[in-house]
């Protein structure tokens, strides 16, 4: 971080929203993205739509037990069946591998990480065997002939239960993830048990609090509570929610001339190659990865996964293409999920609603593999979004024998907001402060600080925050005041309630590359290594390059989806970083391209490069003198060679970009560049979310009447796509409030709800038909286009605004966990106190 002082708070407040597209030709304008026609005609090919000559199919055998050891596998009968080609056993899969995280950092593998097939499955549903055959029917019949002897091992599916004295642990080595004191290296498992006294709070329906391995704090927490006019101490549980991408993570693999060709859906075309290489223990340049369209990811398809490895290995073994279609049931188990967090949170409030101190205690369920980061980000998001002057955060990350978790849209952030917001809503009611006013009083602004102080005693801060404006304008657009004033709240058995929630999440990273080829045909060919999740960031970000190059959009071709087409070093589409990171890279490569065009023109037509300008697919002398068309410039570049056609490369760029440039060399004017723009602070995006619900107190049924998400995401790149993101991800959050959940039988540790009708992702009739969104369009000062990502920030606000509206309608004594359904509402109303058990997992 640069040594600059945070910008003046008043200055942030003075920033005014502006109309989308102001000052740009392309940015901020709606346009149909290049992939839409293929999608709408059914021609777009997702992984399962590919076919290869002689393709075999493979199916998985899942562990029926939550924790067990595979003792023996007898497959002779299966292998003797006509059409059965091979089985793949745990003994045949490569050992533990490193992996690449969101930010492209290599994370060293540890012995506790997941393998493609498990001989000691850690959760019910974990693949333990794969069978390849000529078709799926044969696979299924073969599987039913396989005898697997398994020895059940002790297991734990409820994180809190696993902290009880004498309880069993998820693994032999322990039940809790701890970070070694010395380093920020991989975390280790240890055994942690609380005492019976620690569990005493359980009897009052409050979460017990024992020792927590993770802790940070800042400010005078005790003093904050002492000086508070109101202190609330609440227990709340957020649900474990599967990503449930509509496209299952089906994969097809084949080998040709020693190269592995893999087809699957991913959140990063570029970064997945390195991950596959690590899983497979092979070189990156022996892998061709094809992922043209991806049917949803939400954090669950960030890079490589076991689903890629299994067909790849079987294909190698059988020397034939292998398709592994993943069923919806398998998807439930291997498809990742958000960790549920049970929290005990104490917040002190001053009379005016200003927070004086926060004490947050979390027990997060990391599932069967890895510790995840949700607990940690839960703490930092709470500290950013509500700006408490003093805060303590404690966290216990539990390993359980439940399906593996991963980042899901706003990992930790969603939980933080769902945990904090209902307490704020309750405080506003008890203090008699307006809900919007209370949030305004605690709202971050400008270069707001967050998280714990580092070793030098300094806290991190954000690039910019204009959330107050979003809150004010949102309240205005939602007619908050008018709605609050509307009486009566209750008509017959129907009661209306209003909710507002702040929301934020990480919104961008830096340091990636852009790569453009201007072809001899005069086309601007932009290489995009972004995964195609349909957020259209894949295409939208390159509008920044086109804007800089001042070319009409229809002269641009985006090349994507197949690593044999050569991509620059690109971020994974996770953590809402793409729009921010890749508009920067696109901007950089656009400028680089302009510069090279000018140089080519100068070398061809004489004069200095500075004497030229670029517009309308031409480079020409300033003031409209002679020039070259892009097509001519490209041909000149090929003639000039060297840096102009890719035979030399910009030394700044990443190794992978250099390889791509080399591969494209000679095809036209090849420009590459790295994002080296300054960046002071961490990029976050923000929303103010508003909701109205109508509940029926006789049935407990409620419906969402209205919803508005008002975003502060910097410059709006593509309004329609942004709108989709704001409302889509708000609905993802709303799903957590209104129904999505897991159900696991604790006796057997087996999931009993694995179907959509049991897990209940929201349908079109569960949300208002006309949800609304808006955005400030105030550029972020720390990035050239000013755009930040918005995939994840809405999730927490979506969830919390609904929860807050429900408690506005029905009072504070309704829920202690999400989701909230008719059952909870009805029994709680009946009893006059929350009747949900907040401490039992997976009901």
């Amino acid at each position: 971080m640069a040594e600059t002082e945070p910008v003046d708070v008043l200055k942030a407040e003075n920033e005014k929203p502006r109309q989308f597209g102001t000052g740009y030709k392309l940015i901020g304008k709606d346009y149909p993205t290049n992939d839409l026609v293929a999608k709408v005609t059914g021609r777009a090919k997702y992984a399962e739509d590919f076919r290869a000559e002689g393709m075999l199919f493979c199916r998985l055998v899942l562990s029926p037990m939550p924790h067990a050891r595979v003792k023996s596998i007898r497959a002779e009968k299966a292998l003797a069946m006509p059409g059965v080609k091979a089985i793949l056993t745990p003994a045949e899969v490569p050992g533990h591998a490193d992996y690449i995280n969101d930010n492209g950092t290599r994370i060293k593998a540890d012995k506790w990480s997941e393998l493609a097939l498990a001989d000691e499955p850690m959760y019910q549903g974990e693949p333990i065997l794969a069978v390849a055959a000529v078709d799926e029917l044969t696979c299924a019949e073969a599987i039913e002939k396989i005898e697997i002897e398994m020895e059940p091992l002790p297991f734990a599916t409820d994180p809190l239960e696993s902290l009880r004295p004498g309880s069993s642990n998820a693994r032999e080595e322990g039940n809790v993830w701890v970070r070694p004191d010395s380093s920020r290296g991989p975390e280790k498992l240890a055994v942690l048990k609380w005492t019976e006294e620690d569990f005493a709070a359980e009897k009052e329906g409050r979460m017990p609090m024992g020792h927590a391995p993770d802790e940070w704090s800042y400010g005078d927490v005790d003093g904050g509570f002492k000086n508070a006019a109101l202190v609330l101490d609440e227990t709340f549980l957020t649900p474990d929610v599967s990503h449930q991408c509509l496209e299952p993570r089906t994969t097809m693999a084949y080998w040709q001339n020693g190269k592995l060709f893999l087809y699957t859906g991913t959140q990063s075309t570029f970064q997945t190659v390195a991950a596959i290489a690590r899983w497979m223990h092979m070189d990156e340049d022996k892998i061709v990865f094809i992922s043209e369209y991806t049917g949803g990811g939400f954090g669950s398809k960030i890079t490589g996964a076991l689903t890629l490895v299994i067909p790849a290995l079987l294909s190698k073994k059988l020397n034939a293409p292998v398709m592994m279609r993943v069923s919806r049931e398998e998807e439930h188990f291997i498809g990742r999920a958000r960790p549920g967090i049970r929290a005990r949170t104490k917040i002190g409030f001053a009379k005016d609603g200003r927070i004086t101190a926060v004490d947050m205690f979390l027990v997060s369920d990391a599932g069967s593999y890895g510790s995840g980061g949700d607990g940690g980000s839960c703490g930092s998001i709470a500290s950013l979004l509500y700006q408490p002057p003093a805060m303590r955060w404690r966290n216990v990350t539990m390993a359980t024998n439940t399906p593996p978790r991963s980042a899901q849209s706003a990992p930790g952030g969603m939980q933080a907001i769902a945990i904090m917001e209902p307490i704020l809503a309750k405080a506003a009611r008890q203090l008699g402060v307006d809900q919007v006013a209370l949030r305004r009083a605690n709202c971050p602004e400008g270069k707001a600080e967050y998280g714990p102080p580092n070793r030098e005693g300094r806290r991190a801060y954000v690039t910019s925050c204009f959330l107050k404006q979003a809150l004010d304008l949102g309240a205005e657009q939602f007619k908050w005041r008018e709605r609050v004033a509307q009486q009566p709240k209750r008509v017959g058995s129907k009661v209306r309630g209003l909710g507002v929630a702040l929301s934020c999440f990480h919104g961008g990273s830096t340091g990636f590359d852009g790569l453009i080829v201007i072809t001899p045909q005069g086309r601007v060919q932009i290489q995009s290594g972004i995964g195609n999740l349909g957020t259209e960031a894949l295409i939208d970000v390159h509008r920044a390059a086109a804007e800089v190059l001042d070319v009409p959009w229809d002269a641009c071709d985006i090349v994507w989806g197949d690593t044999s087409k050569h991509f620059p070093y690109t971020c994974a589409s996770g953590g809402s970083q793409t729009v921010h990171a890749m508009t920067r890279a696109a901007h950089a490569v656009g400028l680089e391209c302009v510069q090279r065009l000018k140089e080519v023109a100068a070398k061809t037509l004489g004069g200095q490069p500075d004497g030229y300008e670029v517009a309308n697919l031409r480079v020409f002398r300033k003031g409209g003198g002679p020039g070259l068309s892009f097509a001519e410039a490209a041909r000149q570049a090929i003639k000039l060679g060297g840096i102009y056609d890719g035979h030399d490369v910009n030394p700044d760029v990443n190794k992978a970009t250099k390889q791509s440039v080399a591969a494209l060399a000679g095809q036209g004017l090849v420009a590459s560049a790295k994002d080296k723009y300054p960046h002071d602070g961490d990029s976050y995006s923000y929303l103010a979310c508003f909701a109205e619900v109508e509940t029926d107190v006789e049935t407990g049924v409620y419906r969402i009447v209205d919803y508005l998400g008002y975003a502060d995401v910097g410059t709006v790149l593509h309004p329609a796509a942004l709108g989709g993101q704001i409302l889509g991800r708000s609905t993802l959050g709303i799903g957590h409030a209104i129904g999505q959940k897991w159900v696991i039988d604790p006796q057997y540790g087996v999931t009993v709800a694995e179907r959509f009708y049991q897990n209940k992702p929201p349908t079109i009739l569960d949300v208002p038909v006309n949800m609304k969104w808006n955005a400030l369009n105030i550029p972020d000062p720390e990035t050239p286009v000013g755009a930040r990502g918005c995939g994840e920030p809405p999730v927490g606000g979506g969830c919390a605004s609904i929860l807050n509206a429900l408690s506005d309608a029905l009072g504070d004594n309704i829920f202690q966990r999400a989701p909230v359904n008719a059952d909870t509402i009805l029994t709680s109303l009946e009893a006059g106190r929350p009747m949900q058990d907040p401490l039992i997992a997976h009901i």
Partner: protein
Amino acid sequence: MRFIQWATSPWGQSVPTHIAWGLIWVAAIAGLFFMVVHSLYLIVVKPPKRFAERAAEASAAGIPERVPRHTLAARLFHWIMAASMFTLLFTAFLPKVGIQFNWVLYHWIAGVVLTVSILYHIVHASFFLDFWSIWPDRTDLRDAMNRTMRFFGKEAPPPSKFAKYPLENKLYHGVVMLAGLAVIVTGLFMMKRVQTGVFTRNPYLFSDMTWGLMYVLHGLAGVGFIALALMHVYMGIRPEKLPITKSMIFGWMSRDFYLEEHDTGRWAVKGSGPKAKEGYAARDGD
């Protein structure tokens, strides 16, 4: 045929769940087969009188016309047990052969009645009746041996007469006791698996395998009772056994029958009158 029904547990393991219901028919046929064979044996072979000549019966004079055999309490127990047993059999097996009705409630209630009556019987027989009268003794074994030898035409002394109960009766009691204990113990545990209002339901007292075996044992003993009940009823209505059946209804048997079948030495019935009451009451059993 498979004797046990297997199922795949939630953990994918094979666990027994029940006996194969076809065993109902096996048991019924076995019971009927016994009747037919036994009847044919009596009709065709016409076995000679089994017992040795009457020994000197010095005490016969003191024997009353009506030899008291079963106390009212013992008889009540027997018939309550019989009623509950039939209820149990019918409620258990009629639904399995296609006659559907609300059986579980009656079944467990009958089971509780049976259990209570058996408990009463154990206490009653152990402390108030001649406990040993129902167990085979050395004489029974020797006689059984002799009878077998004679059946095969070998030389053997004629067996002596019965004590209070014939050996068959004693053996039957033994088998019924074992089967009864099996159904009762397993049945009581099984009540933890249904809503009875007596216990909270908890099917997880034992492992799936243990439970499965328990159900199989319950089932095996249950179908065993089909055969046993058929045999018992058959014996109860055989003309030559009717005096014994009558005694279970009225409490006494005739002096003639007593002298004919029973060894006064092994089952001493003392003289009539108020004094005698003590005597036989103390030695009565059933």
